[in-house]
C-alpha cells in the first residue's frame, strides 16, 4: 500500500504534527515501506476469529464513585509551560 504525499499531509494534520513540504516525500516512502511489510497480515485467514479486546481474561472492576484525589492545583500546574491565575494558559482560541 503506497501512501502519497497528500495522504501523509492529511494524517500529519490529524496527528497534529507539523511536517515540512520537503519531508513529505521521504516520509511517504518510509511509511509505505512499513505498510508494505505489514501487508502480509492480509494473507492470514481470520474469518470467524474475534478481534482480541483484552489480553487478560478478566472483567474490568467497578469501584465506588467517590473522590479519591484532588485539591492539588499547584502540583498539577507546576509542570505547565505557562499558567496564569490558577489556570493553564494557551493562545487565544475564541475571537
Amino acid at each position, binding site marked *: 500500500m503506497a*501512501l502519497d504525499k497528500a*495522504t*501523509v499531509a492529511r*494524517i*500529519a*494534520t*490529524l*496527528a*497534529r*504534527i*507539523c*511536517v515540512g513540504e520537503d519531508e513529505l516525500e521521504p*516520509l511517504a516512502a*518510509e*511509511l509505505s*515501506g*512499513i*505498510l508494505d*511489510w*505489514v*501487508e*502480509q*497480515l*492480509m494473507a*492470514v485467514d*481470520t474469518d470467524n*476469529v*474475534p*478481534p*482480541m*479486546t*483484552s*489480553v*487478560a*481474561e*478478566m472483567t*474490568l*472492576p467497578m*469501584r465506588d464513585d467517590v473522590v479519591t484525589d484532588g485539591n*492539588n492545583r499547584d*502540583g*498539577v500546574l*507546576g*509542570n*505547565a*509551560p*505557562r499558567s496564569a491565575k490558577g489556570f*493553564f494558559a*494557551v*493562545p*487565544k*482560541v475564541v475571537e
Partner: protein
Amino acid sequence: MTGLTDLTLAEARDGLRAKKFSARELTAAFNAAVETIKPLNAYITATPERALEMATASDARLARGEAGALEGIPLAIKDLFCTKGVLTTAASHILDGFTPPYESTVTEKLWTAGAVMLGKTNLDEFAMGSSTTTSHYGPTENPWRRPGDNRPLVPGGSSGGSAAAVAAHAALGATGTDTGGSIRQPASFCGIVGLKPTYGRCSRWGVVAFASSLDHPGPMTRTVRDAAIMLGAMAGHDPRDSTSAPVPVPDYEKTLTGGLKGLRVGIPRDHAGADNLSPENEALWQSGIDWLKSAGAEPVEISLPTTHVALPAYYIIAPAEASSNLARYDGVKFGLRVDGDSLDDMYEKTRAAGFGAEVRRRVLIGTYVLSAGYYDAYYLKAQRVRTLIARDFAAAFERCDCILTPTAPTAPFAIGEKSDDPVAMYLNDIFTVSADLAGLPAISVPAGLCENLPAGLQIIGRAFDEATVLRVGQVLETAANFTHRPSFVA
C-alpha cells in the same frame, strides 16, 4: 571496601542483614560506579544525594530489625517510571523539565520494600526501539565490545540504559518495561537476566504509556534469584490500574527449587526466525534443550505458526495505541511548548519539535491505521491475528509447561547499524513480541556467547506462572554457567 559492586542483589541483601557493611557504604560504592560508567550514557539522571538519604533511612530500619525485602538495595529506574520530584523524561524532548507530582506504583512498592534509587536510566524515546539509539539524550553504549574491535555496540532496547547499568555493575538491579521485547532483548545483548511478567502482574500506573495493552513493567538483574526477589517487590494488585490482576503474589525466591523432573518443555521449531538462526545461535538453543533434559525435563515439539505474522500485527497495534496515548503531549499541561499563531499551530509545532523521527513515524502509522476507512482493514485485522497468536499458545500449553526459544535473532550490532531501515530494526523482536501480544510471562537468561558477545535463551510460561519461568530459568543459568564479563565494568 572493594568488591561491593560485584555482589549479586541476594548477596548484598544478606550482607546488609548480617551487618557486614552498611547500606550507606553499599550505596556510596554504587554512586561511584554510576559516575565511573558515565561514558556509557546509561543514566539520564543520577540521584546520588537522594540515594544516600534513602540508604541512611535503610540503615536505621536495619538497625531496628525492620528490614524490607529490598532494604538498602541500590537500583536503577528506567526513565519511563514517574518518580515524584525527580525529572522523568521518557528520553523525549517533549517531556523537557517534567517532574511528576506523583510516584509510579511499581517504584513506590520498591521504596516501601527499602530499595534505594541510584537514578533514572536511558531508553529509546518513549520506549520505541530495540537499540537505545533514539533517545533525545543520545545513545547508550553496551559495556561489551567485540574482541579486537573498538566500535561501540548497542545495548539493545528499549530498556538499554537499565541493561547496561546492571551489566556494568552500576546497579544491583533495574526496572524495565517490555512492550515488544524491551526487557528481554537488551538483557540478552548485555548478558543479564530480564523478566517480563504476565500482563497485569505489575501495575502500569505512573509508567509513561506507550501501548497500554502491551506495556509490561519487570525486573532486570544479574541473576535469576535476584529477578525473583525484585519481582516479588514490584508485583501485586493495584486498584489504580484497571488491568492490574487481583491475584496473590507467591514468594518467588522460595519457588527456585531446581529439579525439573516431569516438566515438559515445548520446542517450537516452526517459530518465526527459527530457520534463519546463525549456526552458533542454533547450537545455543540445542544446548538449552540438552541442559533442561539433564535436569529431568522432557522436550516436546510444539507448533506456533502464527508467530510468523506477530511482528506485522504488533506494528499495527502498538503504533495505534501509541498515537492515541501520545495525543496528550500538546504543550499545554507539561513539557515542551513551541509557541504558535493559534492553538492548533502551537500543537503542531510543539509535537514536530518534541518527537524524534521514530516516534513521529509510529504516531503517523498509528493515526493512519485508525483513520476512517482503514480501521477494519488494519487495526481489527491485527487484533484478530492477536487472537490467533493467543490460541497458538493455548494449544501449545496443552502439551507443555513452558517454551524454550532464543531471545534475540542476532548478536548486538554497532551503534548506527540498522538505523536507516525501520523494518530491519523491528526484526530484533521476532522471538520476544509474541509473549507480549499474548500477555505471557517470559524470561531471558544469559546462556553463552555468539560472535563473542552475550546471547540469551528465553523461557515463556503460562499466564501468572512466573514461578515456573523463574525455576526453569535458574536451571538454565546454572547449566550455562555464564561467567564472562563485559569489557567495561565499574
